[in-house]
C-alpha cells in the first residue's frame, strides 16, 4: 500500500498532520512541534523512497481518485522532481530540528498555528514539485504562499507590513499565473502537462499561447523573485522570525524556479522557448542584471539577514541565468544551483538565527572576535557556507559556477561569463567583510564577556564548545557539511539525476 502510493504520500501526510495539529493541540501544546518534526521526517523518508523507485523503474505516475489524465489530476515523479523534493524536505527537516533549539522564543506562544503553517508550507512545496497538472500546481502554489504570508506575519512589528507587501505581490503573481493558464486552457482544452506537451506544438503560432506563457513566467517570476520582481524579498526575509526565514529562503524561490523550468522546458519545447520566442534570452538578461544588483546591494547592507536576502536575489539570478541560457550545461548549472543554494542559504540563515538567539542582534557592525569564542562551530559553518557562496573548489558552490561558465562559453556569450565571475568577487567582498570581523577584529577593550576569555591564549583557539547550545549548533554544521559532500559528490548528482532528464531540443 505504501509503495505504490508513495508519490502522493509526502504531500498528503504533511496536509493531514498540518490539519490535525490544531485538534491535537487541544491535548497539549508540545504535540504541535513533535507532530511537525515527525511528519517532516516521514516526508523526507518518502521522498528518499520516491527517488529510489524512480532510480530503479523510471518515472512514476499517480492518478488521483482513479481518474486517468487528461481529465484526472496526475502526479508525475521523474528524477528531477524526486530529487528537488528530497532536497526541499531534507533542508526543511534540518531547519525544523534547529527550531527545537530556538524553543519558540520568536513566535511567542503561537507555536500551534506556527507549526501547522510550516507543515502546510511543506505540503504546498511538495505538491508544486510533484504535480503533473497545471491547475493543481496553482492550488498548491496558493497553499504554499498563504502559509508563507502567515509564517512571515508572525514575526516582529514590521513583519506584518513586510508580509502584507509580499501578499499583494504574491497574489498578483499567482493571478497572472492563473490568467496565463486560462489562455492556454482555452486554446488547448487540457491542463495536464504531458497532454499539453503533445497539443502545444500544433498551436505554437497562436498569440494567446505566447501571452499565456509570458503571463505564467511573469507570475512565477514574482514568486521566484527574479530581478525586477523581487521587491518583496528583502523585507520579508529580514523581519520574519528566524525559523521562517531559514525555511522560506532556501525553499520559496527554489520551488518557483523549479516550476519555471518545468513549464518552459517540459510543457513547452526548449527549442520554441529559446528559438521562436526570445523568452529565455529575456530571462537570462534579467537574471544577469539581477546578479550584479543583488551582490552590490548585499555589500551595502549592515544587517546580516538583509544582506543574505539581497544575496538570495543574486543567487536566484544564477538559477535564472542557467535557465535563460537554455543549453545542457546551463540546465545542469541551474538545477545544481537550486540544490547548492538551498543548502548554502539554509546554513547562513541558521547561523544568523544562532547569532540572534545568542546576542540578540545580527548586525554586522557589532560583530567581533568575541563571537568566534561564543559561537565557534556556528562561525565555522558560516565560513564553509561563505566559501561555497564565493565558489571555492572543494565546496558545492564552485561546481554550479563551473557549469554556468561552461554554458556561457558554449553559448559564446562573454557578458554572462563576466557576470558569473565578477559576481563571485562581489560575494567575496561581503562575506570576507564578516569573516574578517569575526576572526580578526579584537572586541572593544571595555566590553567584558563573562569569564573574559584570554584572547592571546598561548596555544591557540582551544576546541571548547563555548556557550552554544548543541541543538542550535549541530543543524548548521550538518547543513554546511552537506555542502562539502555536494561539492565532492556533484558528479554523481549530475550524471545520476540531471543528465537523465535534460529536456529534448536543448
Amino acid at each position, binding site marked *: 500500500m505504501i509503495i505504490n502510493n508513495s508519490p502522493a504520500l509526502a504531500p498528503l501526510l504533511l496536509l493531514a498532520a498540518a490539519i490535525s495539529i490544531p485538534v491535537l493541540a487541544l491535548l497539549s501544546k508540545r504535540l504541535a512541534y513533535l507532530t511537525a518534526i515527525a511528519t517532516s521526517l516521514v516526508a523526507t523518508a518518502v521522498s528518499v523512497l520516491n527517488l529510489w523507485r524512480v532510480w530503479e523503474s523510471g518515472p512514476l505516475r499517480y492518478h488521483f481518485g482513479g481518474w486517468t489524465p487528461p481529465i484526472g489530476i496526475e502526479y508525475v515523479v521523474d528524477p528531477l522532481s524526486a530529487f528537488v523534493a528530497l532536497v526541499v524536505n531534507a533542508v526543511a527537516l534540518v531547519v525544523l530540528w534547529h527550531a527545537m533549539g530556538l524553543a519558540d522564543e520568536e513566535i511567542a506562544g503561537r507555536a500551534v498555528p506556527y507549526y501547522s503553517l510550516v507543515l502546510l508550507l511543506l505540503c504546498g512545496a511538495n505538491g508544486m514539485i510533484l504535480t503533473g497538472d497545471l491547475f493543481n500546481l496553482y492550488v498548491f502554489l496558493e497553499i504554499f504562499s498563504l502559509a508563507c504570508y502567515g509564517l512571515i506575519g508572525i514575526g516582529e512589528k514590521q513583519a506584518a507590513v513586510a508580509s502584507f507587501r509580499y501578499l499583494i505581490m504574491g497574489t498578483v503573481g499567482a493571478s497572472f499565473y492563473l490568467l496565463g493558464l486560462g489562455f492556454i486552457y482555452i486554446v488547448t482544452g487540457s491542463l495536464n502537462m504531458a497532454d499539453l506537451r503533445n497539443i502545444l506544438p500544433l498551436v505554437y503560432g497562436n498569440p494567446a499561447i505566447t501571452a499565456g506563457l509570458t503571463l505564467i513566467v511573469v507570475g512565477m517570476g514574482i514568486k521566484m523573485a527574479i530581478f525586477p520582481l523581487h521587491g518583496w524579498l528583502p523585507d520579508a526575509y529580514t523581519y520574519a522570525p528566524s525559523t521562517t526565514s531559514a525555511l522560506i529562503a532556501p525553499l520559496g524561490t527554489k520551488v518557483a524556479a523549479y516550476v519555471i523550468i518545468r513549464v518552459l522546458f517540459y510543457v513547452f519545447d526548449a527549442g520554441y522557448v529559446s528559438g521562436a520566442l526570445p523568452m529565455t534570452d529575456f530571462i537570462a538578461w534579467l537574471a544577469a542584471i539581477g546578479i550584479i544588483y543583488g551582490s552590490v546591494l548585499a555589500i551595502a547592507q549592515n544587517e546580516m539577514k538583509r544582506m543574505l536576502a539581497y544575496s538570495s536575489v543574486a543567487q536566484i539570478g544564477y538559477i535564472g541565468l542557467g535557465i535563460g541560457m537554455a543549453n545542457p550545461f546551463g540546465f545542469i548549472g541551474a538545477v545544481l544551483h537550486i540544490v547548492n543554494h538551498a543548502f548554502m542559504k539554509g546554513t547562513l540563515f541558521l547561523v544568523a538565527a544562532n547569532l540572534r538567539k545568542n546576542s540578540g542582534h545580527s548586525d554586522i557592525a557589532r560583530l567581533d572576535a568575541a563571537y568566534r569564542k561564543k559561537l565557534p562551530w556556528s562561525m565555522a559553518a558560516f565560513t564553509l557556507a561563505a566559501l561555497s557562496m564565493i565558489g571555492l573548489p572543494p565546496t558545492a558552490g564552485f*561546481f554550479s559556477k563551473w557549469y554556468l561558465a561552461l554554458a556561457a562559453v558554449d553559448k559564446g556569450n562573454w557578458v554572462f561569463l563576466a557576470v558569473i565571475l565578477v559576481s*563571485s568577487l562581489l560575494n567575496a567582498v561581503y562575506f570576507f567583510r564578516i569573516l574578517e570581523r569575526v576572526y580578526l577584529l579584537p572586541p572593544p577593550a571595555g566590553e567584558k564577556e563573562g569569564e573574559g576569555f584570554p584572547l592571546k591564549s598561548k*596555544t591557540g583557539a582551544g576546541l571548547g564548545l563555548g556557550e552554544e547550545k548543541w541543538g542550535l549548533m549541530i543543524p548548521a554544521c550538518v547543513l554546511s557539511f552537506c555542502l562539502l559532500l555536494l561539492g565532492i559528490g556533484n558528479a554523481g548528482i549530475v550524471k545520476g539525476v540531471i543528465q537523465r532528464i535534460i529536456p529534448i531540443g536543448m
Partner: protein
Amino acid sequence: MTAVETYSSILPFYAVAVSLVAVPLILLSARHANLREFWTIAASLVKFGVVFLLLPGVLAGRVAGFTLWEISPGIALALKADPFGVFFALIASGLWILTSVYSIGYVRGLEEHKQTRYFASFAVCLSATMGIAFAANLLTFIIFYETLTIATYPLVIHKETKGAIAAGRKYLIYTLTAGLLLIAATAWTYRITGSLDFKAGGMFGGASFSPEAVTVLFLLFLGGVGVKAAIMPLHSWLPTAMVAPTPVSALLHAVAVVKSGVFGVVRIVGFVFGPELLHRFGLNGLLAILAGATIILASLLAFRQDNLKFRLAYSTVGHLSYIVLGAALLSPASLTGSLLHIANHATMKITLFFCAGAIYVKYHKENVSELDGIGRAMPWTMGAFTLGAIGLAGVPPMNGFVSKWQLGLGSLQAGEIAPLAVLVLSGLLNIGYFAPIVYRAFLKKGAGSRGEASPAMVLPIVVTAVLSVLLGLNPDLFFHFYSMAASISGSILGGSGP
C-alpha cells in the same frame, strides 16, 4: 627516456593526503606544543619520503597515475606523477622539512600567538601544493590552486594587525580574481578540446584558432597563473604579503605559492598551449617581453627597499621571471634552465629569508640600514646569507650559476640576444642590491654580541646554503634535478612523453 607508460599507484594520493591527515592531529593536540610540532615534522618527513619513492619510477620513464573520483561528467579528480610534477613536489616537500624545523624555532623565539592555526594552515598549504604538482588535468589544478589561496590567507593575516588584514585583503583580491580568470580560460579550453588532461607539447592538437581568440585565451590563462607567478603588472600583492611571519614568507612566498604560480605558467606554456601553437601566433614573444621587463624593473625596485624582507620580495619577483623567460624562449636549454631555476632559486631564496628571520628574532632588526656588524655577531647566518646572495647573482660555484648558464645558452639557441643581455644586467643588479648588506654585515662595526639565533633556526640556514653549493657543483646530486629538467624540456619540445 624509455617509452612512457602510466601505471596506477596510490602514492601521489598519499603525497597529497599526508599533511591533510596531519591537520586534525595538529588541531587536536593544540594544548601540548611538542606533540603538535612532532605531527608537523612527521608529516613533512613522510611526505618527502613518498615523493622520493616516486622518483625512481619517473626517472625510469614510468608515470604513476591515480584517479580519485569523477568530479564532473568526463573530468576526473586525477593525480599524475609526471616528471615535472615530481620535480616540483620534491623541492616543495624537501624544503617543508627544513621550514618546519625553522618555524618551530622562530615561533618559540617570538612567542607567536595562535600557533596551532599557523601549523594547521601550513599543513593544508603543503597538501594543496602537492595537489597542484600532481594535478593531471586543469580542473584538478584549479581545485588545488584555489585551496592553496584559501589555506595561505590565515598565514598572511597571522599577526592580525591592521597592516596584516589589509595585506590579506589585497592578497585575496589578486588571487581570487586570478582564480576566476583561470575558470573562464578552462571553460573555454574544455569547449574547444573536450578534455582537460595535460599533454606534453600542448593539448589543443591542431584546433583551428583565430589569432584574436588564441591571444585572449592565452592572456586569460596568463592572468590566472601570472598573479601567483608575480609577473610585473600582477605582482604587487607579494611585497605587501611580506607582513606575514618570516617562515611563511620563506616557504610560501619563495617556494610554495609563487613557485606553484610559475609551475602553472610552465604547465600552460608546455602542456596546454605547446610550443608549436605559441610559435605560430608569436605568443611566446609577448611572454618573453613581459618576463624581461619584470626582471629588470623588479631588480631596480629592490634597490629602493630598506626593509630586508621587501628587498628579498622584489628579488623573488625578478627571479620568478627568470623562469618565465626561460619557458617563453622555448628552446631546449632555456627550458632546462628555467626548470632548474625553480629548484635553485628555491634553495637560495629560502636561505636568505631564513637569515632575515633569524636576524629579526635575535636582534629585532628589519631594515638593511640597521645591519651594521651583524656578520660578526651572527657569523654562520650571515655566511649563509653571503653564499645565497652570490648564488642569486649567478656566481659560478653556486647552483644559481648553473641555471643562469643554461638560460643564457637557451636564449642563444633561440637566436635572441636581448634575453641574454637581460640576464647579465640583472646579475649585476643582484650584486648591486645584495652587496651593501654583506658589506654592512662584515666590514662595519656596531651590532651587539648576543650571538647566533637558536640552533633550530641556524641549522636549516646552513643546510640550505650547503645544499645550494653542492647542487651548484653537481646539479644531478641526490635528486637528478638536471637529468629530470632535461627530459622534461625534451618531452615538451619533442611533443612526446606524459
